[in-house]
């Protein structure tokens, strides 16, 4: 086992997520005849779009060497805001106002982590709490909803379709593609990798480290805004804690996609794979007649084994050398 891991193993182990993904897909296809149907696949894609879009932004933050735990309550904030403003000032104004407010929150994160260089885990943990408080103050603890659910073009983002494909899927796919191009071919992408890989070296290479980190948080906030539009439009209402717990699910998807929490390594497209993997595990288990919470048990095992194989492949031995 150890020799094999050293020789041909690493290549496969590094693709462990892909292998696991394929194994799961085959297993579910065999176990349930409803799994591999266009309808089911499309509904899984659509359900995963909201977490997926947020995961895209968090991936870029994590590649830059930081964490963002505030995306969950930021989603609550953005969704409550856009739904509430929809009836007050109309969707054409509500959406830009919501994006502006959410980007401001992202800018606060970016300022604290990027410019002041404070620890990102604690800053975003604090912001998680602050933003949750802001949502509750804004909504007064009430849930909000849109009165005229049929007559508004706002429905397009969550319920509509473009060229026969559900809008959330189109938006998720487009954003994944754009971010992939930015991260792999454009200077900004290379800078994020450089800052995450070795912050000190990146400064010596003339990269504006603070500005790059700041921008990654803006991107994360932008993604949350998009997710909020999709969620608000889908539900046509919002609870004020709708995003609670999303931050860790999103992070789980990012980790599953093989992005290192150390920063400097990872890929947007593999995050998509992580997101889809979690969504398919959930969907497949439910189709097999399992209660919804079994997905968490499977996710537990999958996350640890996936990251373990990744780490093991890098160090060339299966077990940790710690005594």
């Amino acid at each position: 086992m150890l020799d094999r891991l050293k020789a041909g193993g690493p290549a496969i182990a590094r693709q462990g997520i892909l292998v696991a993904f394929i194994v799961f897909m085959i297993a579910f296809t065999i176990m349930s005849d409803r799994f591999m149907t266009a309808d089911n696949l499309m509904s899984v894609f659509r359900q995963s779009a909201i977490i997926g879009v947020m995961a895209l932004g968090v991936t870029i933050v994590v590649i830059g060497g930081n964490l963002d735990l505030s995306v969950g309550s930021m989603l609550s904030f953005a969704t409550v805001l856009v739904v509430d403003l929809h009836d007050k000032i109309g969707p054409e104004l509500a959406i830009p106002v919501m994006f502006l407010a959410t980007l401001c929150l992202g800018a606060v994160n970016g300022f604290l982590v990027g410019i002041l260089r404070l620890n990102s885990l604690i800053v975003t943990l604090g912001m998680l709490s602050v933003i949750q408080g802001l949502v509750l103050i804004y909504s007064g603890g009430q849930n909000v909803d849109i009165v005229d659910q049929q007559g508004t073009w706002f429905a397009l983002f969550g319920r509509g379709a473009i060229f026969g494909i559900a809008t959330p899927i189109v938006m998720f796919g487009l954003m994944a593609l754009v971010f992939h191009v930015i991260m792999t071919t454009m200077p900004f992408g290379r800078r994020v990798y450089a800052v995450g890989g070795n912050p000190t070296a990146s400064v010596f290479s003339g990269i504006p480290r603070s500005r790059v980190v700041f921008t990654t948080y803006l991107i994360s906030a932008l993604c949350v805004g998009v997710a909020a539009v999709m969620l608000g439009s889908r539900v046509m209402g919002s609870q004020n804690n709708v995003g609670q717990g999303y931050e860790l699910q999103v992070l789980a998807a990012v980790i599953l996609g093989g992005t290192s929490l150390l920063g400097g390594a990872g890929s947007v497209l593999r995050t998509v794979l992580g997101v889809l993997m979690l969504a398919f595990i959930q969907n497949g288990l439910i189709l097999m007649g399992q209660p919804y919470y079994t997905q968490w048990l499977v996710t537990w095992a999958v996350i640890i084994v996936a990251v373990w194989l990744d780490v093991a492949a890098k160090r060339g031995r299966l077990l940790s050398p710690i005594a």
Partner: protein
Amino acid sequence: MTPPDTVKESRPVQADAPVEQALPQGLEETLPRATADRIRPLLDNPVLRWLVRNPIWVFVLIVFVFFSLVSDHFFAARNFQNILVQTSTIGLIALGMTLVMVNGNIDLSVGATLALAAAFAVDVQSWAVFATWGNWQILPAVCLALLVGIGLGALNGFIVWKTGVDAFIVTLGAMLGIRGLVFVYTGEQSFYAMNFAYSDFSALSIGPLPALALIFLLCTLAVHLLLSRTVHGRNTYAVGGNREAAVNAGIRVGPHMMINFMIIGFFAALSGVLLSTQMGAATPNLGRDYELWVITAVVLGGTKLTGGKGDIIGTLGGVLAIGMLRNGMNLMNVPAFYVYVVLGSILIAVLFLDKRFNRTADGGLRL
């Protein structure tokens, strides 16, 4: 964030640092020389010297005085009992979290562990096997619940030890997984304690102290002694300060970290048991987000995520600060919403001040 092996430099072990009459380094550099000279003699006073070293207690004092002055009901023995009971839940877990974080690890799974232990404690006592045991039926239930906590902690620690995967990821997975176990075990039901002796326990008082508060204070003392007076405690700082050096010094780092995970598992379970005595019930969603509150309390208390620094006195201060803020704002009829904003802001402000006044601390997260 750079890979751990390149940024870690050895930090002195905290246990018995020599008494120095100088201001904290950052303060010395920041303040004008004249001001610093004027302040320095104040440090001859042991109380003030102690407060400078434990800034969170300054904050605790300020909060205490503030609420005593502005709220009519805050300064009352009855209310202090309340605060201690309310903080005991998060406080107990924070004790374990301090050990784990001084080790340079983190545990995100405590909320789920708490829920599972609470479910076991409430459910097992009504098993038919123990039907004839009278009030003794509570004993095996609580023991089993605590064992479950220790076992889950051991599992986390073992995985961290053997796989070398970072504790953040391991316990993030466990957080989801153990919550799954809670739902599997409870079948999405809440359990209610049929034996009223169980829920009466939380109303017990020993002298002026409620039983729950007494348990919390005794555990605080025990963990404080463990961390400051024993070989295990010294090793905890050594492992967190510089893992390589700890290995070279002959500390078995893997089993050592596993023991600390078992301790936090035990405290999460104990906290779950005590919480369920307060409610006389266990719900599957118990303890959600507790990990975030606990980490907030521990970080407020001055423990570094990078490991190697922190102590129980600070953690107790952090826990009490959160408890008094929540309690005091409640008494002043401030809507609960504002507590979130205040706590989050304080967390960030503490981080900012710490960065400003402790330049030696790099403050980076080691993952």
